[in-house]
Each structure stands twice: as C-alpha cells, then as structure tokens.
C-alpha cells in the first residue's frame, strides 16, 4: 500500500464528506425549524437527482435549467409534505414517533414511486465543469468534486447569514423555539414551517444533483444517504450547519481510511459505528452545545 493510494482514497473521502454534510445540513435545517428528524432527507436527493436527469436527458433542457428543475422539485416536495401530512398531524398534536413513522413511510413511498416511474436503472449526470480531473499531490480529483466542495461551502455560508441576518431566517428559528411567543409577535408559525420544509427539500435536492455525477442516482439510495447525513448532523450537534460539515468530514474521511485499511464492504460499518458511539458518548456533538436529549 503506497501513499498515493491513501491520498487518492482520502480525496474521494473528502468529496463524500461534503455530500454527507449537505444531507446533514438539510436534516439540521428541518430539525431546527420543526423539531422533526426527517428520515426522508436522502429521498429529497433522489428526487433532485432524478428530475435533473429527466430535465437534461428527456426534456432536453440546458444543464442549468435542468438543475433548477431538480431543486424546484425538491422544494415543492418539501412544501407538499408539510401541507398534506405534517400540518394535519401538528393539528392533532401527534407525538414524536408519529412524525418519524411519517417520514419513514414517505421514504418508502418515494423510493417505490421512483422505481415505478423511473425504473431500476441508475442514472448519471455530467459533472459541473465537465468530466476533467486535476492532479493534487500525485492523486487525481475530478473538477466536479471541487465544484461540489465549493458549492457546499457556499450553502453553509449562505445559511449562516440567512439564520443570523435575515428576518425570514430569524422568524423561522423563533417559530420552532417558541411557537406561542412567535405567534404573539406576529410570526405565522405554520408558514415558517412550510418555508423550512421548502428550504430542506431544496438543499436535499441540491445534494442529489451534486452526487449524481459521482455515484449516479437510483431509487433505493435514499435511506443510506439519510443515515450518513444523519451521522454527519449528529456529530455536528444537529442544529449547526458548520458542525454538519465537520461531522461529514469525520464520517467521510474515516470511511475512506476504512476502505484502505479494512475492506470496502465495511466502510458503512465504520461510519455508522462512529455515529452510534458519538450518540452515546458525546450526545451534544463534537462542538458540544445545543440540547439534543430534550423531548
């Protein structure tokens, strides 16, 4: 085993890290805005990836418009889920388990729907910036991967500004932290929850579009992505987008080392074991704040 192999593997891990981080950020956004853990975040990615493929290949749209279609589809699914399912459940004050069962049921349904409509095949997209590669320290990294990392960082910064500087972002947090107080100062709590799902759906779809050129998109990949994203989000303390990046890096890089050191079959075991250990031993995440145990 030589050092180039390890570097190559780490580069792949780095790219994966940001995919997990993006899924984790989506989970964190929805948790922050609704106190719901969304077990179908990975399926937003499937929707986004699939519709972009559809737009580009079947509808013949330009790349950018196809991506816009994918993101819009993710956002629209988020809104639909909030209006059709979450709203009536909030009205009858359903408990935590019910929301989890809902998102699991939705994950099952979306996966089956994609199978029905799109078939079993996996679909690829061309990379952003073409399919070229660049050489870094003797190892190769695709141009797309660099775009993926840059876009992910942009999303993180954008969210940071959004939640800190904009009225909409602040209102969305207020609506989940203290719904009654938020209502009393004129915030429409139900609408904020809708926005949260739109945002979560859009970020999920973006993750799907970015991952499709790397590993392709297929109907059954949602749940696996959700778990990795959740692992990233948990490591980051769950409400913090920057923490999700850190968590994604831990998961992605340790996976890539597991591939080098063990066998590729065990990489998910390593990632998920880290997640379980973190949940038990460091329940507040690597950055150690924000109550996760409550409720």
């Amino acid at each position, binding site marked *: 085993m030589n050092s180039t192999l390890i570097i190559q593997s780490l580069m792949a891990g780095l790219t994966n890290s940001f995919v997990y981080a993006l899924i984790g950020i989506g989970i964190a956004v929805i948790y922050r805005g609704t106190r719901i853990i969304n077990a179908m975040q990975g399926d937003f990615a499937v929707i986004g990836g699939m519709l972009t493929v559809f737009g580009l290949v079947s509808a013949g749209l330009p790349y950018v418009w196809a991506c816009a279609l994918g993101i819009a589809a993710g956002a629209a699914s988020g809104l639909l889920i909030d209006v059709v399912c979450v709203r009536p459940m909030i009205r009858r004050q359903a408990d935590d388990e019910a929301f*989890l069962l809902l998102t699991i049921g939705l994950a099952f349904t979306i996966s089956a729907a994609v199978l029905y409509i799109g078939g079993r095949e996996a679909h690829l997209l061309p990379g952003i910036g073409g399919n070229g590669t660049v050489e870094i320290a003797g190892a190769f990294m695709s141009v797309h991967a660099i775009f993926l990392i840059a876009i992910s960082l942009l999303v993180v910064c954008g969210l940071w500004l959004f939640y800190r500087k904009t009225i909409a972002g602040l209102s969305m947090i207020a609506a989940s932290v203290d719904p009654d107080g938020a209502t009393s100062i004129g915030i429409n709590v139900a609408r904020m929850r809708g926005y949260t799902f739109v945002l979560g759906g859009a970020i999920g779809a973006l993750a799907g579009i970015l991952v499709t050129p790397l590993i392709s998109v297929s109907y059954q990949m949602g749940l696996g992505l959700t778990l990795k994203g959740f692992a990233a989000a948990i490591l980051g303390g769950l409400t913090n987008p920057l923490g999700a990046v850190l968590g994604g890096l831990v998961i992605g890089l340790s996976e890539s080392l597991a591939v080098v050191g063990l066998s590729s079959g065990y990489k998910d075991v390593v990632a998920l074991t880290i997640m379980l250990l973190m949940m038990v031993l460091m329940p507040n995440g690597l950055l150690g704040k924000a109550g996760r145990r409550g409720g």
Partner: protein
Amino acid sequence: MTKTVLNGRLAFAAVMLVGLILPAVFERHMVDLLVYAGLYTIAGLGVGLLLGQCGIVNLAQALFYGIGAYASAYSTVTLGWSPWSGILLGIAISVAVALVIGFPLLRLHGFFLALATLAAGTIGTIFFFEWDWLTGGTLGIGGLPPLSVLGFEFNSPARFYYLVWAVVIILLVLSSNLVSGRPGLAMRALRDSAPAAEVMAVNIHAIRTKIFALSAGLGALAGSLFAHYSTYVSVESFTVQRSIVFLLIPVIAGARSIWGTVAGALFVTFVPELLSGFGDAHQMLFGIMLVLVVTLMPDGLAGIPARVARRFAR
C-alpha cells in the same frame, strides 16, 4: 359486562373455528400467505411491544429475524443439530446481542433512538452480507430440514400453518398477560411520563432493556420458523426494508393493541398481494396507504371501532 365477555368469547371461538378450517378451503398460495402473516405477527409483536407500550421505534428487527434464521440454518445444515436446538440458539444469540447494543443505546430517546436502531440494523445487514462463511452471503443457505414433533413433519404450508398460528396464539396470550400485569403498567407509565414513573420507583432503563431483549427474542423465533418453513435463507430477507415492514405491522394495527398485531400482519401480507394487480405501482400504492394511515389514523386499524362509535354517538 358478562354479556360483552360472553360475546367476546363467542367471537373468539368463531374466529378460531374459521382459522381451523381455512387451510382446507383455501388454495395453497393463500395458505402460504397466511403462514407468512403468522411469522410476521410474531416479529411484529416484538416491535409492537416496544412501540405501543414503551414508545420506542425499533428499526432493527430484521437483524434479530436474520440472527434467528441464520442460527437455525447454520446449526442444522452445517453442524447437523436438531432444529429445536437451532431455534433456541438463535433466540439466545439475539437476546445477547439485544442486551449488548440495547444497554448503551436505550439511554437515547425518540428520534435518536430510532435512528440508532436503524444504524444497528444496517450494520447487521452488512455483516450478514460480508460473513459469507457463516451466512452464505447472497447465495444463502438451502436445504434446511422441516420442523417435526414426535415424527410428525411440518413440511407443507397447511401443516406449518397450524404450527405457526398455535405459536402466535400462545405468544399473544403471554403478551396480553404481560401488558395487563405489573410490568405492563410500568411500561405504559414510563411512556406517558418518565419522571412520574421514576417517582413510582420504576427503573426505566432496566424495563426498556428487558423489553428490547424480549422483542429481539420474538424476532429470532420468527426468523427461525421462517428458515425452516422456506428451507432456504439469504441476505435479501433481512434488509432494512424488512425492518420497516415489521415496524409498520403495529403502526397499522394501532400500536397499543396486542391482538391487533394479527390485523397488521395480515395487512402487510395481503394488501401488497391485492395491489399486485396494479403491476409495478403496487409498492407505491402500499406506501401511500401507509402514509395515509400514519397521517389520518393515529390509532391504526384498532382505532376504527372507536371512531365509528364516536360518529354514531354524535
């Protein structure tokens, strides 16, 4: 009071009688589905005890189902043991695994515990796949002997039907006893208010761990019976999707209802079968039905009588 008890007993006797003659009147395929409904009742009962009594969402039941099946397959085919000792081995390993992973994980709650069990179940699937010296990997293990009692072999769907449903009824009775007994009170109490249950001296972590182990044991038993019924096991039967189906059994049934588990298991075996007329759309339609149940029917099928009663009372 006595009249309702009498009516209940009569209804129970009628259901039993219908159950007894079903294999005689149904075609083989239907009997086969009924056997699976029985197996799923056993596995779903475990998940249902956790969900309905303790409020724990368990997405790892396929792991224990798999442990039971592989323990039976390996010990009978490779080691040449008797089927019954294989079943016991499966239960023992499952309970041990449940205690080892449950002890730390059951300190988590709600969403976090659910996703932790999902992770545990996923890890289990990977091991089933990777440890092909034990599980046969994707090829699986075939040629399991049928179960037999005193020389009577349960080697046809009809024969196995009676075996599995006898086991189901015994387990349902035992579970009802448990739930209406002192431990059941404590479980429901800690679900409603953990702090108040602690004040009543309930050791929350101990009870949750015990129920998790019990649920795992039921999963293993179902898995072993499945292995001896189908005589062939492979990784495909023990995926996370299977765990989700097991979880849906109590959800559809109305998680608090023990006997309702049967309805949930019948639902998840027969409804996809009925929907298969719609071709490839059937899985999606099944999914939509599930989402509708979760969204609109918080008490599942078991909640329907109460709803109807409320409507008429108005």
